[in-house]
Every structure is written in C-alpha cells, then in structure tokens.
C-alpha cells in the first residue's frame, strides 16, 4: 500500500504550522504503511548558503563527524542535530568539499539531501514515532512531503524509506510499483547517475532529476516520465519552489487533493486531511490520471 502526503503552504501565516500538520497527516497514514516513514521539509533559503541532511550518525561518531565537517567547511558553518540525522549549513561554494567529506566519512553515514531549502529525515518504525523522533511537529517551512511505507519492492531499512532525493532540493515519494525500473536504472547509470538502493522509487526520483538536469521544467520532466515509467504510481514531488503530483494512466493508486486559499494538500486518503484548518470549505478533488498538477512559490 504505502501512504503519501504533501502540504504546500500558500499563506505565509501558516508556515509555522507546517511540521505539526504534516506530522498529523503522517500519523493518520500509519495504516497504509507502518514499517517506516520519512519526510522532507522545505524552509526559506538563505542567500549564499546550502544545507545538507546526513543520516546514520551515532552518538559515538558525532564528535568526529562535526569536527571533520567544520574543518572541511573552514569553520564558517553550523550543525543542527536531530537524533541520528544532522543538518549541515555552509557556504554554497563548499558543496563539493562537504559532499566529498560526507561520502568519505564511512561508519554507515549517508547523504540524505542537499540544497538551499530541503531537509530530509527518514527512519524505520511507526510514522508517529519517526516524526516525533526528529521533532517534525516544531518544524516550519513552505512545503513538505511525507511517506509511510509498506515495503513491497525492497527491504525494510532506512535506506528503503522514502522520500528519495537525487538532486538539489529535489525529492520524490511514491505509492505503487514500477515494472521497468531495472532497465531504466541501467540507462540512468550510463548517464552518470548513482543509486543507493534497489528501490524502484529511487529510480523514479533519479529519472526526474536527470530530466531536470537536462533543462526540463518540473512539469515537463513529469510529462516525459509518463512515457518512460511503466507501472502503477502516484508521485508527489518537491523542488525548491514547487510541489507536483502525477498519477499513472490507470490511476490504481489512490490520491486525493484539497485546496484552499491557504494551502494545497495531497494525501492517499481523505482521512489525512481531517485535521487541516478550513478543510470543511476546501475544494476536495481526485487528481486525474496522466495529468501533471503543480504549484510553485514565486522564486
């Protein structure tokens, strides 16, 4: 099954509520996916700075990791810790150096996401526990994407949890299964992409990142994925300013959306909207198959 949720805030006054509302939505989707959960939160970017989320840092490695990072960042940087995830903030031009440091650190430490506004957290366990472990309730931002997983295509591990981030400020959550992901993975590897898991959803994320890197706009990348990705899917995709939804032509996987003047929300089931403010008067609709829906904040 799997449950997916997304919330794109239109009214800035609601930004402080983003994490709390996302956490309620994730908790409601536990019945669709109790084995792991994850979420990406997009905050307001700070000019000239980048953020990287890194996961799998144990208490005993934290000291070495922080020291190594600050050395690589030449001192002018900061670290925020959320359980075994840390969010590193540093000057944009240091991105290659920080990436090299994280990839070389070892000790099962993994890159999770990077960009100007994305932070990405995921873990094994009940969605409610995962959300509270990382303090999602208190997080603020402009939009969020979350996933509760019932594993079908690969193992129950943190790496197999969604979202998958394969490009700067990009991430994807997926409900469904892709039938041509191995073929597509080989093609994308030939194009220079690398994949961390055997998961089909990571291939979908990688495909979109590849299209975006080729110069596609988000909606164009999603249009072309309709031709290239075979199988059942509902995708919710985040970029720095944007938020998009796509369903396959058969639209077997459930999806419902709600829009008000204050927000656009996506969920696998209406239940996940029940706690959203003003939901009684929202426009609630089912996204059509093969149609790209997307919203963007002014850049």
């Amino acid at each position, binding site marked *: 099954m799997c449950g997916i949720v997304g919330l794109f805030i239109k009214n800035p006054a609601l930004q402080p509520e983003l994490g709390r509302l996302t956490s309620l939505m994730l908790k409601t989707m536990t019945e669709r996916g109790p084995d792991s959960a994850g979420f990406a939160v997009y905050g307001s970017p700070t000019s000239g700075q980048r953020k990287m989320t890194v996961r799998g840092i144990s208490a005993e490695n934290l000291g070495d990791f922080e020291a190594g990072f600050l050395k690589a960042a030449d001192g002018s940087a900061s670290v925020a810790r959320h359980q075994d995830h840390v969010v590193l903030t540093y000057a944009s031009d240091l991105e290659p150096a920080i990436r090299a440091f994280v990839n070389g650190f070892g000790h099962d430490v993994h890159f999770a996401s990077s960009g100007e506004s994305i932070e990405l957290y995921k873990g094994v366990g009940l969605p409610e526990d995962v959300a509270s472990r990382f303090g999602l309730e208190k997080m603020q931002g402009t939009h969020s994407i979350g996933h509760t997983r019932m594993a079908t295509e690969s193992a129950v591990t943190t790496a197999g949890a969604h979202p998958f981030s394969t490009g700067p400020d990009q991430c994807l959550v997926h409900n469904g299964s892709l039938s041509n992901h191995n073929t597509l993975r080989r093609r994308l590897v030939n194009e220079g992409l690398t994949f961390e898991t055997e998961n089909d959803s990571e291939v979908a994320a990688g495909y979109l990142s590849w299209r975006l890197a080729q110069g596609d706009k988000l909606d164009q990348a999603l249009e072309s994925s309709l031709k290239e990705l075979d199988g059942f899917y509902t995708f919710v995709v985040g970029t720095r300013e944007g938020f998009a939804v796509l369903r396959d032509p058969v*639209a077997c996987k*459930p999806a419902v959306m709600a829009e008000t003047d204050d927000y656009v929300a996506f969920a696998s089931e209406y*239940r996940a*909207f029940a706690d959203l403010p003003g939901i*009684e008067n929202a426009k609630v609709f089912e996204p059509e198959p093969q149609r790209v829906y997307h919203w963007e904040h002014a850049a």
Partner: protein
Amino acid sequence: MSGARNTRIFDLSTSTLRELNSTLQQEGAEGAWEIHNPAGRHSLAVGLTQPVSITIDGHAGYYAAGMNQRANVVINGNAGQGVAENMMSGSVHVKGNASSSAGATAHGGLLVIDGDAGARCGISMKGVDIVVRGSVGHMSAFMGQSGNLVVCGDAGEALGDSLYETRIFVRGTVKSLGADCEEKDMTSEDRQILTDLLAKGGITDIKADEFRRYGSARKLYHFRVDNASAY
C-alpha cells in the same frame, strides 16, 4: 445540521466505527440517524439490512454504505473508493464527488452522485441504477452486466469496456468506447427508463433527449478465437 425530531445522532468523535456499524446493523435500528464527525473514516454505515435513514454529515472514506440493503444513506460530502459497493437495495446519495469504483458490483438499489465520479464507476454493476450529475472517469461500467448508468456530464476513456446488458446514457462527450461497446438508438423504452432515473436522481433541469445511449454490441459474449485480440 440539526437533527429532526426522533433523529438519533451518532458522534464518531466520541464513539468507535465498530460501535456505529454494529448499532446500525441491529434489528431495532429503524428510523433516522445522523453520523457526526465522520472525518473520512472507511467503511461507514456498511452491511445495513434494516430500513434505516442515515445522513453522514461530512466526507466518507472507502466503501461507505457498502453491501447496503434497504437503507437510505445520504453523504453530505465526498465519498472515497467503492461507495455503495455491492449494494443490493435501498439508496445511497453522495452530495459531493465520489472516488473510483462507485457502485462496483452492486445488484440493486439507487446510487446518486451529485458531483463527479472517478474511474471505474459502476464496474461490474449487476442491476444497480447509478445517476451521476457530473462526469465519470475512465473504464466506467466495465463489464457492466445489468442496470443503468446515467452520466449527465462526460465519460472518460474506454466507457463500457466488455459490456453485457447494462444501459449507459451519457449527455456530454465520451472520450472513447471500450471493447464491444457501441452507441445505440434511444428507444421509447430507454427514454422512459432515463426519464424515471433523472427524476429519481432529483434532476429536473436536464431532459432525456439530451443523452446518447450506449450498450453492448454483443460480439464478445462468447469466446471466439477470431476476436482474441479484442478481449
């Protein structure tokens, strides 16, 4: 919404879904009920066998009023997948939109949807009457066996694929017809059936003459190897 006299109220913010359904399924449940705070829960008011009148005040999740017999259920909101699935008799009225597979496999009764219905509306319907004020999604009335599907708006791709004897009436455009579904002449019997269904659906501003009638070409009833590619 305030309860009329003798209307019993069931509040799902204080009681469980299991309590709701077991109460409504019992003998003695006859009469009017309002269900408050449904919050999109699944399986609301399912398996009813008593002549009860139920108003769900809000949005319903999957399979609302499924397997209904004799009860009249009104949903003041949207309904999730499989609303009125396998209904035998009685009626279900969705005031908002319905998701996919509305009225799936239903044998009898009346399903009215004021808004749009998603994909596969009336899939494998076996005698139910379905009246949709808005549009229906792709593969609606797939393998429909009997009953009537009335669509006042448009129909998506592959309408009536592998159809048996369900009558389909569409007022708007049909994106494409499924295998073995064809447009038919509207007979006076068809017109009468449609007129009655529009009235039952509370639709007074649309006339039967505005619809086209679709049905089975009856070429795929029995397997013939010549038709293998059409199945």
